[in-house]
């Protein structure tokens, strides 16, 4: 039987949706017993959220002031200690999970499967390689503990349940290293939806030509209740902050609607949006590769099209 430990990701006392996606992924392993570990300075509210995810049989909390700002170096030794006896240890393929899980895998001397997008069995998984241009099926040697990160865009969040799993607190004995210290995090706080869970995403590329011009996308996004993304070119040029980058090395997203304005569609960008249900591309260049994957393509000047679309939506609401 598979016994799976999932590390919870959370911010500001709230469970991140990535955790329920990991649970959904884990629940596809037949007969899996799924536990969630919460590392926090005060894990109570996150733990009670995690206990209500369908499929979770137990939540383990580790309360420590050092977990106020989660750091891989601090969590890894404790998570590795908790992970003894589990066949699988999962985390989300977010920057939190990508940073943490390999450190845990090395401490456990376990192999890691990164970005799993499909479960074939308890030992066999599919994952993208070469920026999603090939899909590899990997198999872990039977009896080997496996660490994995879950490609969250490939899984819907597991539903929440009316009954709650048991919550237990644990006190790992691993000493916490002092060699790594949290200094700050500067998040561009916005009232817009989080890109990784948003149903709609409006995104801009180099053609926006300035940070100021991105305002027309923010306006359209706010009208639609959408998150705002950007191509690598736009982020490199300083038109948008790094946390808006969509693609192979940025965020991998799966919204119901993705509107790409002035994005040519480099393969590294397309890999970040291929799970979007509907893709709309607006570009001046009729040969832009983004049109190959778009459900609706429109050749034209985004500086005319964005305000027109905004007006049409405004007048119909």
């Amino acid at each position, binding site marked *: 039987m598979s016994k799976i430990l999932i590390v919870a990701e959370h911010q500001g006392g709230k469970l991140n949706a990535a955790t329920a996606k990991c649970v959904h992924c884990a629940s596809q392993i037949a007969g899996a017993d799924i536990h969630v570990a919460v590392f926090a300075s005060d894990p109570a509210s996150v733990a009670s959220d995690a206990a209500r995810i369908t499929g979770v049989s137990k939540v383990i909390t580790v309360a420590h002031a050092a977990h106020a700002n989660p750091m891989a170096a601090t969590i890894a030794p404790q998570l590795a200690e908790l992970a003894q006896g589990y066949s699988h240890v999962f985390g989300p393929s977010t920057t939190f999970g990508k940073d943490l899980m390999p450190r845990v895998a*090395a401490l456990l001397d376990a192999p890691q499967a*990164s970005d799993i997008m499909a479960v074939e069995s308890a030992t066999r998984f599919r994952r993208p390689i070469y920026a999603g241009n*090939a899909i590899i099926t990997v198999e872990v*040697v039977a009896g080997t503990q496996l660490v994995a990160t879950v490609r969250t865009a490939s899984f819907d969040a597991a539903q929440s349940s009316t009954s709650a799993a048991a919550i237990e607190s644990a006190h790992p004995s691993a000493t916490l290293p002092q060699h790594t*210290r949290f200094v700050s995090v*500067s*998040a561009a706080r916005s009232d817009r939806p989080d890109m990784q869970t948003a149903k709609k995403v409006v995104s801009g590329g180099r053609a926006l030509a300035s940070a100021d011009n991105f305002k027309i996308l923010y306006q359209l996004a706010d009208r639609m209740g959408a998150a705002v993304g950007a191509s690598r070119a736009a982020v490199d040029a300083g038109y948008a902050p790094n946390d808006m980058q969509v693609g192979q090395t940025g965020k991998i997203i799966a919204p119901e609607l993705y509107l790409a304005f002035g994005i040519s569609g480099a393969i590294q960008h397309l890999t970040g949006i291929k799970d979007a249900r509907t893709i709309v591309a607006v570009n001046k260049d009729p040969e832009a590769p983004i049109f190959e994957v778009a459900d609706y393509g429109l050749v034209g000047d985004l500086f005319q099209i964005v305000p027109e679309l905004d007006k049409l939506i405004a007048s119909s609401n």
Partner: protein
Amino acid sequence: MNRILVSIKRVVDYNVRIRVKPDGTGVITDGVKMSVNPFDEIALEEALRIKEKGLAEEIVAVSIGPADCQQQLRTALAMGADRAVHVQTDAVVEPGSAAKLMLKIVEREQPMLAILGKQAIDDDCNQTGQMLAALWGRPQATFASKVEISGDTAQVTREVDAGLEVLEVDLPAVITTDLRLNEPRYVKLPDIMKAKKKPLETIDPSALGVSTVERLKAVKFDPPSQRSKGVMVKDVGELFTALRGKGLV
């Protein structure tokens, strides 16, 4: 001596259109242009800049893989690395094994920093740096977009989902690079000539006492499922009507 170790992985060039072999045993690499993993180029560039500020004295480029990796190590030497270490093997080396091999080199070289690309653009694993840091028992600062060394510590700005995070780490430490850390320099012809004279050492993994047996094996390779091509609309009105029809706007 203040030394920096840099990883140099040989990968299919990022401009190559990847094709899966018809029999599903891999991707086509015959006759395909190979390059230094772009994130490793950024790692080397950062090491060079640290050295140019007088904060390090020697840069050692390390590659693990078949004989041809020496081409990429020569590129690294031409960019400015002082010497190269090639752990030569034809085996598929998974990140866990790569980290164990790197650790052996780290133990021998005693660097102040090991800078690695955050991921290789072939397997996209994003594991080796973190694993090396764990095995070494040292800090990790992954996905770095800014590195400032002062004395025995480094302050590293990291690109995370929420924005930018700053960590302070004691040295020695492992740093993995993100795209915006720097823009790697171009190699000049005279440097290519000079690089031929720089030391390049070859080591067998067994001499380091590390097994490279795979624990996560490739079963098969498939091309990704393609999205079906959509339709072109002629104006905003038509686009709006289509999206409204699907309840999306």
